[in-house]
């Protein structure tokens, strides 16, 4: 079929699919932002497996109108970050739970639900909402990001006017087997402000989430999330951030289980001397498909970016990594690092990686590496020869494989919480699914 025909078919299918979607009512700014996003979306069409960036991850079940069931999973253990003192915000199947949430206020914080912010004709969130998502559409189209901007039912808008030490913790509970949630958060930091955002939980049977973060000069954004252990859940997430000068961005994601997860991170470094680190650890057992798609644009001097992604796969699980560093012409002295690695615990699992560097500046240091491997037999023998049982030795080696990603978590208590969960996941191996 000719390319033009294919595109037309895609657009027709998109129009057809979007009949089921209703744009939430809202004030002037929200209406404009949503309509612009819809226009972007209908211009691109919803993704299909034919698209270059969806070649390894079939998007159909993230879009299809079919009933996408996901059994609710009770881990029978405390949720992540329960021991971390934080401002708590709770959504159940994408619906805000006022009872379970703290008062949406704090020092140096202005917090509004998106559902409320969108009712006004003018709101500060309009300077971010859909803005970074739109910027992130070139050079690679992200139609599910536009879909989110157009149709997100709710979310949290956080404005940070100074350094906030107590994190904001968003918990996404999953209660309905057929829930289909679309949430969109906006974080706007003032110059020199700082915020740690935690997220945890499966959210819904199917979840589409966007976060847009504006990080101006001297501001700092720290993000740690865990995506919930419900085996059948599906999620597509987009995390957009734009950094001014001397700004810092750190994000870490733990994904254990989930039948399909696509995490996109789109970062733009537009001010000098900034740093952006994005890391992830994914643990998959059986019916598990996990995709990290990262795009970092260096458009200023002396910025540092790091991507550290590790996946442990067994029992037929699939891991995907598509990571790109784009260094623009004037982004001299860029320091870019990217590593994506998988540890395959058996012969049935697979890891697909596409590391990309595109560099137009002539004075940069960029390195990237991608490996797929099994447990190091030599190390295993050495440990066993000291009396460490095979499973315990394998677990230690698996944790050591993940260590570089975990090291990206700045806060020690949070890192310890994440580490405990990795240990528990490994301990469940051989005792049914994690």
């Amino acid at each position, binding site marked *: 079929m000719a390319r033009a025909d294919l595109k037309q078919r895609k657009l027709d299918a998109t129009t057809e699919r979007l009949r089921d979607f209703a744009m939430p009512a809202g004030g002037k700014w929200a209406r404009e932002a949503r309509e612009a996003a819809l226009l972007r979306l209908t211009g691109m069409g919803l993704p299909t497996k034919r698209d270059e960036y969806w070649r390894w991850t079939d998007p159909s079940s993230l879009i299809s109108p079919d009933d996408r069931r996901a059994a609710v999973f009770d881990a029978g253990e405390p949720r992540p970050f329960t021991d971390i003192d934080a401002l708590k915000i709770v959504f159940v199947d994408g619906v805000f739970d006022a009872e379970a949430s703290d008062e949406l206020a704090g020092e140096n914080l202005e917090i509004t639900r998106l559902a409320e912010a969108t009712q006004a004709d003018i709101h500060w969130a309009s300077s971010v909402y859909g803005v970074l998502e739109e910027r992130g559409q070139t050079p690679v189209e992200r139609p599910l990001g536009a879909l989110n901007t157009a149709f997100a039912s709710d979310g949290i808008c956080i404005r940070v006017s100074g350094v906030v030490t107590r994190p904001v913790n968003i918990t996404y509970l999953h209660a309905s087997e057929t829930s289909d949630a679309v949430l969109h958060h906006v974080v706007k930091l003032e110059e020199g402000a700082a915020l740690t955002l935690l997220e945890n939980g499966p959210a819904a049977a199917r979840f589409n989430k966007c976060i847009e973060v504006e990080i101006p000069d001297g501001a700092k954004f720290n993000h740690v999330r865990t995506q919930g252990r419900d085996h059948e859940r599906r999620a597509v997430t987009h995390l957009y951030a734009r950094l001014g000068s001397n700004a810092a961005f750190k994000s870490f994601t733990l994904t254990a289980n989930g039948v399909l997860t696509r995490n996109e991170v789109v970062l733009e470094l537009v001010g000098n001397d900034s740093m952006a680190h994005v890391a992830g650890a994914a643990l998959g057992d059986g019916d598990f498909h996990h995709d990290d798609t990262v795009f970092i644009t260096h458009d200023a001097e002396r910025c540092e970016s790091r991507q550290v992604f590790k996946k442990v796969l067994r029992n037929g699980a699939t891991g995907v990594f598509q990571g790109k560093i784009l260094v623009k012409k004037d982004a001299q002295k860029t320091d870019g690092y990217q590593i994506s690695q998988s540890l395959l615990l058996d012969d049935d699992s697979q890891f697909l990686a596409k590391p990309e560097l595109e560099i137009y500046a002539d004075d940069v240091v960029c390195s990237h590496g991608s490996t797929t491997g099994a447990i*190091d*037999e*030599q*190390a295993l*023998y*050495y*440990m*066993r*020869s*000291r*009396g*460490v*049982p*095979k499973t*315990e*030795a394998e677990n*230690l*080696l698996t*944790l*050591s*494989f993940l*260590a*570089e990603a975990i090291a990206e978590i700045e806060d020690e208590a949070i890192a310890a919480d994440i580490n405990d969960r990795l240990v528990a996941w490994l301990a469940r191996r051989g005792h049914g699914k994690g």
Partner: protein
Amino acid sequence: MLEIKNLHVKLEEEDKQILKGMSLKIGEGEVHAIMGPNGSGKSTTSYVLSGRDGYEVTEGSATLNGEELLDMDPEDRAAAGLFLAFQYPVEIPGVGNMTFLRTAVNAQRKARGEDELSAAEFLKEVRAKAKTLKIDADMLKRPVNVGFSGGEKKRNEILQMAMLEPKMCILDETDSGLDVDAMRLVSDGVNALRDGKRSFLVITHYQRLLDYIKPDVVHIMSDGKIIKSGGPELALEVEHNGYADLLAEAE
């Protein structure tokens, strides 16, 4: 203590026989040394005893206090009291030396039905033993053997041996890559563990090490078996004359 009887071993991958009727008997508290030219099967002996993959035992047995080692997993051999100090200690990035050591000590204790050491007890013991081997706090914190010099790696092996308190210690070319000072330090570490009950099998190319760790019996190994055994004087003979005469004699 350790009894190897008529051991025949070949490489799994290729049809190559390495051990061809190796026999050896080490009594309680004894120190035996094995010397021999390259390729005679010395290191293979240590690997087969400790349970490394890639070898197939076609005949013979190896028992530790009457228990057949060759049927056991490597970790069970360790729990039974066997320890191999590696010629090339393995680097394990990401696993802290201390974590590893404590995991190993407690895994063995657990396997033997003993109580695990508490963090405090372990720390106290490891610090004292590390000190005599001149292993500093930094080395204990670093990942296992990563960035260690040759001498540091060997000292770390001896520290593991001291902490695990095995009954039967095999030292595979522990002197390789060591300068004289390091060799003395390592030897002192080994000698400190000689208590009249613990047995040692020292594999080496050079008589020099045996000046520090004095053996009761010296074996000469060639082409997969022991061709001659004797007292410490046998090592001196090798040092002076090489293996040629001994090999010719055995022919």
